[in-house]
């Protein structure tokens, strides 16, 4: 237990809209051990980004709200903290990097100034002390000519360089937890490879835990130690990375893996998941994936399955893995 960085228990994050309210994250549990990478995979609207915003305490207000759950970061419940206390943790002990580095950086300030700002706030350094540290940080993330980059503006850098700057900013206070929300989606493959290499190096060097959110199973294969597969606000499958690729249990995971282009041979038709993600206002009564599932049975349409442990490190939310008796009891 000593070495657990983050524990999330039964997190429920809802949104109010003009058309009614819905739960974008619906009872999510997970934990991240120190120095490990937890990957969350899912399609758009599955609640993976809202999960990360909930941890950061950045759920858009006033429409979004966390209605229940616990987020224990090093034993401290983040949901009980006040906004100023949260600000002390954000960017300091928990850092975040975003998908689009251009929008996350302020275009009118120099790179050096933006990094220095964080150092001033959290490490209480003087402005004059910051510059060498900035250069050191930029060097650490592998930016060429860091002495120059400190005095440049975000628009002068390429997408890959900006993402490196974002990582440098995130690492400036040696965070215990790094939340990366689709950090490489906007980047080209060769740049993506560079950034992923960098993140791996930093993880092993500084023992930072990483919550890695992506839609790309390939990136998961590269990075993650453990994986959550999310669909419609719920965890569908949870296991370690190798098991997920060796023996995926949930039909959704299976379909995601099979629809990857690398798995398809030329001339064959791709395997499709029919239909689309259900609207949050029109959730099926039973399993959220049932309308698209090839294996769905009557019970799937009637009742929501619970996350069931198949082995110590493999949980799945699917009626297939319940015995007949258990199914009967539930009806």
């Amino acid at each position, binding site marked *: 237990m000593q070495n657990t960085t983050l524990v999330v228990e039964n997190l429920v994050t809802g949104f109010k809209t003009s058309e009614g309210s819905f739960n974008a994250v619906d009872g999510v549990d997970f934990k991240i051990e120190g120095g490990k990478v937890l990957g969350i995979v899912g399609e758009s609207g599955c609640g993976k980004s809202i999960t990360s915003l909930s941890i950061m305490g950045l759920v858009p207000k006033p429409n979004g709200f966390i209605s229940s759950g616990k987020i224990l970061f090093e034993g401290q419940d983040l949901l009980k903290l006040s906004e100023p206390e949260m600000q002390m943790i954000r960017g300091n002990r928990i850092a975040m990097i975003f998908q689009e580095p251009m929008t996350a950086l302020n275009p009118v300030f120099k790179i050096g100034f933006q990094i220095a700002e964080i150092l001033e706030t959290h490490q209480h350094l003087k402005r004059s002390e910051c510059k060498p540290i900035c250069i050191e940080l930029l060097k650490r993330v592998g930016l060429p000519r860091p002495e120059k980059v400190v005095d440049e503006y975000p628009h002068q850098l390429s997408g890959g360089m900006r993402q490196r700057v974002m990582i440098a900013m995130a690492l400036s206070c040696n965070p215990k937890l790094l939340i990366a929300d689709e950090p490489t989606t906007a980047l080209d493959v060769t740049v993506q490879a560079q950034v992923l290499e960098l993140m791996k190096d930093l993880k092993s060097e500084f023992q930072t835990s990483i919550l890695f959110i992506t839609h790309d199973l390939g990136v998961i*294969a590269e990075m993650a130690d453990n994986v959550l597969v999310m669909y419609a606000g719920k965890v569908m499958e949870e296991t370690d990375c190798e098991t997920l690729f060796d023996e995926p249990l949930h039909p959704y995971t299976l379909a995601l893996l099979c629809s990857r282009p690398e798995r398809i041979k*030329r001339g064959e038709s791709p395997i499709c998941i029919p239909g689309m993600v259900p609207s949050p206002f029109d959730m099926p009564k039973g399993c959220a994936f049932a309308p698209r599932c090839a294996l769905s049975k009557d019970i799937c349409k009637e009742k929501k399955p619970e996350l069931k442990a198949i082995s110590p490190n493999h949980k799945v939310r699917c009626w297939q893995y319940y015995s007949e008796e258990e199914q009967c009891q539930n009806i």
Partner: protein
Amino acid sequence: MSEYLIRAKGIKKHFPIHDGIFSRTVGHVKAVDGVSIDIKKGEIFGLVGESGCGKSTTGRTLINLIEPTAGSVTFEGKVIYDVENKIAVSTKDMQALRRDIQMIFQDPYASLDPRMTVGEIVSEGIVKHKMAKKKEAIKKSMELLELCGLRGSNVNKYPHEFSGGQRQRIGIARALALNPKFIVADEPIAALDVSIQSQVLLLMQELKKKLGLTYLFISHDLGIVKYFCDRIGVMYLGNIVEQGTSEQLFSNPLHPYTKSLLSAVPKTHPREVRERIILKGDVPSPSSHFEGCKFYSRCAYAKEICNREIPELKEIEKDHLVSCHLVGSGGEL
């Protein structure tokens, strides 16, 4: 000759850079810098490359949506333009040619006019080319929507009522409305969710079989191109650096850039071991001047000749073309 549907020779597109108070032209962004492509009837030609390599501009210049700076294109033996010989089809003929050449766009949210109903969007071309009266055109668009896996009754709805994947199907239906022979698909699935991507790919594949289409498929995703395309061109900074069949390119990549590109694709399994060729530095600006090979500054194998002479696209084996001094000349990579 008739084997090829569309042939492009040395097409270039240079965008002028304006600066100063008098908007003087101070340089050119060479988005497409001499690309030659021959696409056979019924084939899917893939164009891959990273952002900014000019693949989208190539697609648009090829079908004369952007005015070319240089080069020539013939479609079914008919010259669309030939800048060197000052030949260009008349605006009228080009508008007629648009029936045969269509395009599918990347962003399903930006490519449909939000103020028009789906029926109006799909039937717009039919009405414009007077292929049918308005009423019949709407009927035709219902058939097209059904062909693309949507209900025909959707004609009276507006684009904002559909999801990304459905919008892309509407975009495909619009492209098919004029019974085209050739379709340029510019990253048609890049903006879609993983599970929706394969649905759209499957649809494109079925339509190709049913209607005998030819595609130019532009993508940055090597995995999809490998599986979907017959022949592939790899682009870097406005040039094709390697071209070959899907088989040749993926099992025997020759150009150092192709090699590093392939090695950068994420693993398919956590236990897979992959030799990474991490490229150094960034892509140079497409407006800079190159003496030799454009990849020189990032190439791990670069020799002195590479900085001096521009390599030509040579045929190494049948259908497999590479533009590198070190390939095929006995040079070791």
